[in-house]
């Protein structure tokens, strides 16, 4: 196992986590003996073939799902707010709340008073570019806008860690780039521990300190790559040969796994 941490206690310590789903149709081993250490304030990206257990791992990290075997120890300083704020793959915004109430939901559940939480929500709505839509209902908005509501809700909650499951998947290329910048800004200014599941290798390399490559199901940690590019990363990073080489390396690793996952099912 690669050691990412540098002596201090990691924000997330994942030790030998396996997850078995038992259903009427049989059992599915989603995760098999996954071990990871995520340093506090680090930005980790997870890539892997679909169905390899990325979402499951994220849920286990955030305590929404329990590991069948193994342990997850979260060591995050959170007093009133939840330890982790989620952005789900399918956003999960509440259809019955306006944009404002959706964004304010996390802080509201944390007991923040109306005036203050609406100020926080307004602020975040502005930062993700939805000003003017505060009173709109999610159904009136596009898929990408709904996804941004979910992101704003997670940011606004103020949790020390952000767990994001393909949060930028529904966005067009320009919005995606803007949201990536926003994400980096939040991460840098608030010292959050971020875990981001993505299917874009480029995104993982642009954003992450560390890229975790997972194997086809049952999901194992196939490789942990420390991204060597210094921050702030330049806009033309994607054009450099180092970037291309690393992308090719991850792509090769993934290709075998994607192939395996397709033969498997």
């Amino acid at each position, binding site marked *: 196992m690669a050691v990412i941490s540098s002596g201090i206690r990691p924000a997330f310590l994942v030790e030998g986590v396996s997850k078995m789903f038992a259903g009427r149709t049989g059992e599915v081993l989603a995760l098999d003996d996954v071990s990871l250490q995520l340093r506090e304030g680090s930005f980790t990206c997870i890539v892997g073939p679909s169905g390899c257990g990325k979402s499951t791992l994220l849920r286990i990290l*955030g305590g*929404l799902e329990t590991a069948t075997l193994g342990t997850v120890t979260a060591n995050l300083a959170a007093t009133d707010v*939840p330890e*982790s*704020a*989620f952005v*789900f793959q*399918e*956003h*999960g*915004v*509440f*259809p*019955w*709340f306006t944009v404002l109430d959706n964004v304010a*939901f*996390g802080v509201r*559940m*944390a007991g923040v008073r109306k005036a203050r939480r609406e100020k926080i929500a307004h602020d975040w709505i502005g930062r993700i570019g939805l000003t003017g839509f505060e009173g*709109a*209902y*999610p*159904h*009136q908005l596009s898929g990408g806008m709904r996804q941004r509501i*979910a992101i704003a*809700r997670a940011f606004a*909650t103020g949790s020390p860690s952000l767990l994001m499951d393909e949060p930028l998947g529904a966005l067009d290329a320009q919005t995606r780039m803007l949201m990536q910048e926003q994400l980096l800004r939040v991460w840098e200014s608030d010292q959050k521990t971020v875990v981001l599941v993505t299917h874009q290798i480029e995104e993982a390399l642009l954003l992450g300190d560390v890229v975790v490559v997972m194997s086809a199901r049952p999901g194992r940690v196939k490789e942990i790559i420390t991204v060597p590019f210094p921050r702030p990363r330049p806009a033309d990073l994607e054009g450099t040969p180092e970037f291309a080489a690393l992308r090719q390396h991850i792509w090769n690793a993934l290709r075998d796994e994607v192939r395996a996952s397709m033969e498997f099912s």
Partner: protein
Amino acid sequence: MSPKKTPTRTWSASGDLAARRRALNAASAREYAHSRHLAQRDVLLSILTPIVLLAIWETAARLGWIDARLFSPPTRILSQGATMVANGQLWANLLPTLLRLLTGFVTGSIAGIVVGLLMGVSRVVRAALGPMFTALYALPKIAILPLLLLIFGLTETPKILSVAISVFFVLQINTVAGVVQIDERILEAARAYRATGWRLFRFVLLPGAMPSIFTGLQVAAGSGVIVITAVEYVASNQGLGFLIWNSWLLFQPAQMYVGLIVVSLLGALLTGAVVLLERAVVPWRRANTLRKKRNT
């Protein structure tokens, strides 16, 4: 095949902002006018169709194509209605029906929603009551009227109770379904943001079940009118149901038509009231249907 040249519009090429604005406004005004026109046409058609049918009915009855004794011409029904309003007969029958219907509808709905919510949030309550209620739902509610008459006698209670029971089951089933069918991803989001207990109920489960509850209320409004009419056929000497039934016994078709029309209006009004309430309570659903309906 060579690519077709798309015609470029001079105002966009020139980059003249004001001109572009004007063109945009004009286009959007045209679009709006068109959709207004379609909406007006819809309204016109919806009014015109019954008027035409009534005119055909009137002509047919007067010319003897249909038996005017059975199919009273609309003008005859109208004058009968006016007479009944003037001599107070209509009001004397409308009021009891209205009171029974509303009392039964409101109590039955509240009970159904409360029990449904309890069943929705508590697996234990659901397991205990669900199968029994499902079995009872199949029982035609009007069939227990004799039993209610036996217990309560010829009072208002069995009439109100008949309505309340039939409304209760519709609401109970729709409320449970509403809670149970809330999207798993929504529940997970609620859990992730620490919505538990009362707050989970208030901010997630209740609003999540609302659309289904209102569907139930609409269905119940219809079935409530059916039940109260049927009850009044046999167990009342007052009310719209009685009026209709009595018109048969006395062979007064025009009066019967008046009764039928007023009963349908009552049903339509109650349903309309539910729809208005839904718009106020469930604004997000309306927003949704507006978006879906936009195209003709």
